[in-house]
Structures are given as C-alpha cells and as structure tokens.
C-alpha cells in the first residue's frame, strides 16, 4: 500500500466512521479526526462539462465562478452535506458565440436565473474511497434529484479534494434546445477542492 493510498484509506475510514484499523496506528495517522469539519470549495477546482454531438465531438466547457462547502460529519460520511452553487454567466467554451447562446434564454437564461444550486440530500459510500452523492439540483427555476459519483483524490490536514462525475438530463431543466444534434446528457467532470474552514 503506497503512502498516498494509505492516507486516502485512512481518511475515508475516519470519514466513514470505521473503527481504527490496526494499520492506522502504524501509519502515524495525522490527526485524522481533523477530516471532519467544514471545507470551503476553492478556486483551484475545475468544473468541466461536455455535451456530445451527433457524429462525434461536442461542446466542452467549464464554469469559472462557483462556491460551496463540504460539511463532513465526524464519524459518518453518510451524514455529510455538500452544497454547491455556480454562476452560469461564467461559462467558457472557447467560442464566444456559443457562450452567449448558453447564457441566452435558450439555455441558462442567466439574466433571470443567475445561479445554479446543488444541495446533497443523501451520501452513500460505494467503495474504499468512493461515494455516491444524491441531491437537489436547481437550475432555471426547476429542482430535480440528481446523482454524482465522487472519488476522494486528496486529503490532508487542511485540504480535501474529490473527483466528481455525473450526467444530467438537460430536458429536465427546460434546456432542451438542439436535441438530437446535441446530446440530452450534460456530462460533468469536476475536480472539487475544499479548504478547511
């Protein structure tokens, strides 16, 4: 077991409230209880998305302004809460006309709905360092339940990072323009980093 995976395992075990494994004491586990607490999602995070198009390729982009928190419960990760908000106005795709189209009433309608919000309602551990996050996504005035898969990528005393992936059907949020030329599914691929509060 590498030192890195040791740390991840140790962090998750703590997060998941598992009783200390004998290996842990040998790992000179830093104050693992510190994993619990509140983390503010910081600007080093990458909120990337992709919408496939017929014949291959598609639109890839990212959002540059967002905020949020992880509140990791001491002892039980399933009681933790993730909150996230992003500002669709800040969408970047490398083609200004596509960005303006995404901001328009056809898609995000950023003038009327400047914020997209996610709040977890249920977190289920799915593996050693993975979990499924279920929660309410509110976009363009509609709230629906969505699922994302999270993998712990880094953790230390002050910083925690997750790789979070998931697909969202845009028809649910009144953003169905361009189907079937462009896929209904928006694939999110995010590196979300939090700094201990």
């Amino acid at each position, binding site marked *: 077991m590498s030192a890195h995976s040791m740390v991840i395992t140790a962090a998750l075990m703590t997060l998941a409230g598992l009783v200390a494994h004998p290996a842990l004491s040998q790992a000179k586990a830093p104050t693992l209880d510190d994993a619990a607490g509140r983390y503010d999602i910081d600007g080093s995070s990458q909120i990337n998305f992709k919408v496939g198009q017929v014949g291959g390729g598609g639109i890839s982009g990212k959002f540059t302004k967002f905020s949020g928190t992880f509140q990791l419960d001491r002892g039980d990760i399933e009681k933790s809460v993730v909150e996230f908000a992003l500002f669709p106005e800040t969408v970047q795709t490398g*083609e200004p006309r596509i960005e303006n189209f995404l901001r328009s009433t056809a898609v995000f309608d950023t003038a009327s709905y400047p914020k997209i919000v996610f709040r977890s309602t249920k977190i289920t551990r799915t593996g050693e360092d993975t979990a499924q996050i279920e929660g309410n996504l509110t976009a363009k005035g509609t709230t629906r339940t969505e699922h994302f898969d999270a993998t712990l990528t880094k953790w230390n005393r002050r910083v925690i990072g997750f790789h979070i992936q998931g697909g969202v059907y845009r028809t649910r949020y009144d953003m169905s323009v361009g189907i079937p030329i462009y896929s209904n599914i928006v694939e999110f691929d995010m590196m979300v980093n939090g700094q201990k509060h």
Partner: protein
Amino acid sequence: MLRNGPDTFGWVTILLHWTIAILIAGLLVLGYIMTRPDIDPMLQFDLFQWHKSFGFTALGLCIIRVLWWLASRHPVAVAGLSVREKWASFAVHILILCLTLAVPFTGWALASTSTLDIPSFYFNLVVIPHLPLDKSTVAETLWTTAHAILAYGLAALVLLHAAAALHHHFIRHDAVLVRMLRSRRS
C-alpha cells in the same frame, strides 16, 4: 408526356420546376426571417437546422434538374417572342440554374467553415458531412456574405422571371405560363 417535346415541357421538367420553385421561395423567406437580430435564440437555432435540411433538399433536386436540363431537348420558344426576348429568357434561365446550385453550395460551405461546428443533421436522420474546408471566422464570414448576396440575387432574378411569366399570361395572353403548368401531347 414525361419528356420535353419539340414545343412542350414534359412532366419531369414541370414537376421539378414547381417543387424547386416552392422550396427556394420558402428558403429565401426562412433565410431572411431566421437571420433577424432580435429573433428568439432557441427558435433561431431550430430554424437554422430546418433551413439546412430544406436547403440540402433543394441542392439535391437542383442537381437532378440541371442534369435533366442538360440531357433534355429544349422546347422552341413560344411564337411571338422576339429574338431579344428569347435570348434574355435563355440567359436568365441559365443564370437561375447556376444560382440554384451556387446558393446551396455556399450555404453548405458556410456551415462547414463555421467555428460553431454545428453538424448538419438532415431532418434528424443522417449527418451530412462538412465540406473539407478549414474552419475560421474569416472563411465563415466570406461564405456567409457570398451566400446572402447570391441568395438575394437569385430572389431578384426569380421575381423578374415570375413577373415576365405573369406578363406573358395576363397581358400578352400567350402560352408561356400555361406550358409550364401542364404537359400536352405535341
């Protein structure tokens, strides 16, 4: 009569003429409406895709019609036309035939060079590939300008052409319009 006769148009010519005429008239109106700057962006996206699908349909039919035209005999002009009128109508027909190919081709070229890279999904059935042209804002602007100028040029010629046909029918009371409406045994 499917084929043109010595002084009559056959049904193939007539059917192609009027199908293409309706398509192109529709495409001209659609092209104009969908490019108005204050149009709803979602409606605009959808209208652009309809325009491309119908535009490709027009291109296909226009290729068939030009081939048919090249392979067909050309009925002699209606009696009573002066030499100048014959040449003028012949020149306008050739010009219109060329434009009915050039306009959709420039449309295809502009869609192909656009940095938006929106696939042409023919009536949501099959993807029509882009022409092998480099994508750039410069190329897209150039082809867009060419498409607009040629399309409105075609519109002007068609108006002239239709006015001439109506003039023959209602003022000169000759057979020019009627023989493009139905085929007769010659």
